[in-house]
């Protein structure tokens, strides 16, 4: 089957640098494009101040388009949030949720993206109701399939069934590769040990994860080993993470239009030790995937207590890995030196 897999970056990856202004939105678009990852994904309200409560800042949208044009960026996705808990003590009414999604469709259209990302907790009925408007605007709404959910979970199956029943091709999936964590990430283990988890317990949990032991058994074992507080919390990560199989994406390829290239740590030799990217890319090729894999660096929150994350270097390493897996002959490299 023919495939067309392209490289991109979610600007989420650079959050530590853009949070305090070390890097601007323009900087991170340039960096991504220099690495050949010219597909740009944004969380609208992270990259654009004011959205959604204060509306659209048109000058800011114009500046985005200028950056994208300058560096050759292609807008991939606007990740929207839909805060249905906006009102304390009562959920946002259904019609208001649908209207809110329509506003994000408009926002996505303004950015020139083809996709908007829906969080996985949003009900299929809301998305189905917004689909005709998305079709009108040439946008697809993709629900992010993210751990602890996965493609065999009844909630995701309910979405899939609703999408098929709707008959709309404006509804689909955006799988986050964090559902395929096949080894306990080293940066998690080290963080938990800094929080006081004894080494023997940390080693046990890491091994139990590799042995695919059911989370509840591991939690009980850790309790019996004398684990408290952070040790229990470390064991409980097994409730929310599991080594689901990349091939489970194959049934849904016709609705998968974007991929979150989640990673926690890229080593110097261009390996993400906890997520099987070689297997993932193989499956995507087999399934004839046509679209972007957007880097999504999430190791930042696991190391920031001891070191300032170097998001740019982490993204660069992942892009080198992806380029190799995709058979590109050129090694992605930054062209503009970063300010010290």
């Amino acid at each position: 089957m023919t495939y067309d897999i392209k490289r991109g970056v979610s600007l989420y990856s650079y959050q530590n640098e853009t949070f305090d202004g070390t890097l601007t939105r323009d900087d991170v678009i340039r960096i991504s494009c220099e690495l050949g990852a010219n597909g740009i994904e944004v969380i609208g309200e992270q990259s654009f101040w004011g959205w959604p409560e204060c509306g659209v800042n048109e000058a800011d949208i114009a500046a985005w388009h200028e950056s994208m044009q300058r560096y050759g960026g292609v807008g991939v996705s606007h990740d929207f949030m839909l805060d249905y808990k906006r009102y304390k003590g009562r959920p946002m009414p259904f019609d208001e949720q649908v209207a809110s999604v329509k506003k994000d469709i408009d926002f996505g259209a303004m950015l020139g993206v083809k996709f908007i990302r829906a969080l996985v907790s949003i009900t299929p009925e809301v998305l189905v109701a917004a689909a005709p408007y998305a079709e009108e605007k040439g946008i697809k709404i993709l629900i992010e399939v993210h751990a602890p959910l996965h493609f065999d979970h009844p909630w995701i199956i309910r979405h899939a069934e609703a999408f098929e029943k709707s008959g709309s091709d404006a509804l689909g999936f955006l799988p986050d590769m964090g559902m395929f964590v096949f080894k306990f990430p080293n940066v998690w283990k080290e963080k938990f040990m800094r929080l006081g988890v004894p080494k023997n317990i940390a080693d046990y949990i890491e091994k139990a994860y590799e042995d695919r032991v059911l989370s509840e058994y591991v939690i009980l074992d850790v309790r019996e080993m004398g684990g408290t507080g952070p040790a229990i919390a470390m064991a409980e990560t097994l409730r929310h993470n599991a080594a689901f199989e990349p091939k489970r994406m194959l049934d849904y390829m016709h609705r998968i239009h974007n991929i979150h290239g989640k990673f926690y740590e890229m080593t110097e030799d261009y390996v993400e030790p906890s997520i099987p990217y070689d297997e993932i890319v193989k499956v995507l090729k087999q399934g004839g995937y046509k679209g972007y894999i957007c880097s999504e660096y999430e190791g930042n929150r696991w190391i920031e207590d001891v070191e300032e994350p170097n998001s740019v270097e982490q993204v660069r390493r992942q892009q080198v890995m992806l380029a190799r897996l995709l058979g590109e002959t050129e090694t992605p490299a930054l062209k503009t030196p970063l300010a010290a």
Partner: protein
Amino acid sequence: MMDHKMIVAGSLKAVEGGFALEARLPYYRGLGLSMVEDIAVTVDGTTYPREAVRFTVRDTTYTLDEMETCYDNRWNFGEKALITVLGAELAPGEHKVTVAVRKRISYLPFVPTMTASKDLALAA
């Protein structure tokens, strides 16, 4: 997440009727003000009452209760907000300042509180 960048270094100052400091929302995005449930300020072990706290962004000031029904303003990603505590006086010098922000996040099955501490000096 971004806890260590939450309290802005060097931002503690005396203001009329109290003291103030700058803080950023420790989160990977911004948040509508109605979803900021609480901002608790503790200095040198003393936590000030909720009623004493004021929140200011882009020249608009809110009480924490007013924020709960504010649907047209945000605490943007990385934006420095001024947190004022009224009816409190701090002596010049070093103080240990702790800020705890409780956020109502639609997709989370719990209501997280992010807490950070920093030593800040109040100029004489």
